[in-house]
């Protein structure tokens, strides 16, 4: 499915940006869904993991750009650093915040996001509020053609790949003990514990997975594409809200939900932005509200209920 979207964007004149936007939102939803969809916990600080991924990539490029023999291996190291950064933060946050439930968890995670941003700005870590700008360093490392190819083509391609990776991991989790443990604890955490499920362990697994994928998105869709990171942009909470909307639109806890939700959301936002410039959000909001009221289970959730007991059941997951 992501392959199709990639090919469509790649071979249709002028559609690359639109396809890349769809992929960004689908990837965001897919990565977020690993945690929200499978555990039912809402992480309002999710964008902090994307931001840390963005910083992981930016710091790698900023420090390693003059190491000639690394070549494009530097980008690989950057992606790994992105996952490590966001993974580590999620481990710390998860170990503390996942002991809280429901709204308390959501509030604690907002605090992490805002706190981390002010910490960076306050102690002037990693460039402080000026952020890190890597455009000239990318040119030094890859030449100006290479650098522009990197930010106009490869950055988006990495987002496609991250979306596909997130989908693959979701599928693997769903079919394994992890998926059963997560579904059980989402449905009834106390009952799951009594049945022998180490709920904290499985929540942390899902949390770290989701955060690391978020880090990859931040590293590719922000740092590589825009060639800079500013704390005010990277920690912008509206990305978290968009992730929540996408997952709910498509169907939380389903494999295909985030793709459907991501594409629908991107198409609405992009399409309305072109046809009603300036008014797009005013029109988008009521449309989303209507969809959620009519289909509380999300697009795929509704479809899943429709095909239950038919041959299509296996294909809508």
């Amino acid at each position, binding site marked *: 499915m992501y392959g199709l979207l990639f090919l469509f964007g790649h071979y249709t004149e002028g559609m690359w940006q639109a396809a890349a936007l769809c992929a960004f939102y689908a990837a965001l939803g897919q990565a977020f869904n690993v945690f929200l969809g499978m555990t039912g916990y809402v992480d309002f600080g999710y964008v902090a993991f994307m931001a840390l991924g963005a910083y992981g990539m930016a710091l790698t490029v900023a420090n390693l750009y003059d190491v000639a023999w690394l070549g494009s291996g530097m980008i690989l190291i950057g992606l790994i650093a992105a996952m490590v950064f966001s993974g580590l933060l999620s481990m710390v946050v998860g170990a503390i915040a996942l002991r809280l439930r429901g709204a308390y968890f959501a509030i604690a995670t907002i605090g992490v996001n805002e706190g981390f941003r002010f910490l960076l700005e306050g102690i002037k870590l990693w460039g402080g509020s000026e952020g890190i700008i890597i455009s000239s360093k990318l040119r030094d490392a890859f030449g100006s053609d290479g650098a522009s190819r990197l930010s106009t083509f490869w950055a988006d391609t990495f987002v496609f790949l991250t979306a596909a990776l997130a989908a693959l991991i979701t599928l693997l989790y769903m*079919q*394994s*003990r992890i998926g*059963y*443990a997560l*579904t*059980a604890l989402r*449905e*009834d955490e*106390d*009952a*799951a*514990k*009594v*049945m*022998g*499920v*180490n*709920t904290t362990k499985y929540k942390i697994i899902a949390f770290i997975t989701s955060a690391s994928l978020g880090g990859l998105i931040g590293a590719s869709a922000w740092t590589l594409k825009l060639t800079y990171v500013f704390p005010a942009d990277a920690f912008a909470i509206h990305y978290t809200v968009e992730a929540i909307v996408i997952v709910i639109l498509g169907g939380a*806890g389903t494999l295909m939900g985030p793709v459907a939700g991501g594409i629908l959301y991107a198409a609405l936002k992009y399409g309305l932005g072109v046809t009603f410039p300036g008014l797009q959000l005013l029109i988008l909001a009521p449309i989303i509200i209507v969809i959620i009221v009519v289909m509380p289970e999300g697009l795929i959730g509704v479809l899943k209920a429709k095909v239950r007991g038919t041959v299509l059941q296996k294909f809508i997951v």
Partner: protein
Amino acid sequence: MSLLQLEGVTKRFGGLLAIDNVSLEIDSGEAISIVGPNGSGKTTLFNLISGVYAPDQGKVVFDGLEITHLPPYRRAHLGIGRTFQIPRPFGSLTVRENVAVGAMFGAHEHSMGVDAALKSADERLRLMGFYELRERPARELTPVEMKMMEIARALAMKPKLLLLDESMAGMPPKDIDALVQLLKGIKQKEGIAVIAMVEHIMRAVVGFAERVIVLYQGRKMLEAPTAQALSDPRVVDVYLGKELEQ
């Protein structure tokens, strides 16, 4: 050595003394009924055994290991399975998947992968005459079916001790008899100790239990073989009230 041992267990909720210095011992393969009127502390006792709460005082020992402060999932791994008074199914999962969760994460030496667990869930459901419902999402079951599913789910954990919390409440007498027969068979075949908590279905107590423990206002009022316990004047008092003095 007994399978489960409670020593002077006490649990308070604010000013309410829910369980007051209760000690008891259960052997492997025993069938026990805990009876007592509403609010006598039965569910609290179950929560203390399965690890939902830790006691304020006293000790809980299971299979030679002190478990007083172990979390519920560790106790499940050691072999304690339970059902809930108000069924708590994993609603979006099918009956078969619910039971498979029990097999997957239950007692440690028996815990298994997804495929094996689904297979064992099928066997368990067939055994309980429940097989045709296996693809039904658990939330669509009737309350009585949910209770049966919870028993299947707890049994799939391969427990050494099974705690049934009012599992027979609301069932027609014919189903109670069938369930009692089924439990007796399973108990004999798998050597599980079963503690059934019953509020007032004497049919289940008489048919099933070898020993009865009566709880009253958080205390153990009586512990005796079934027939003796049910004819004890104090038990009659608790249930029916004292005879009017002439």
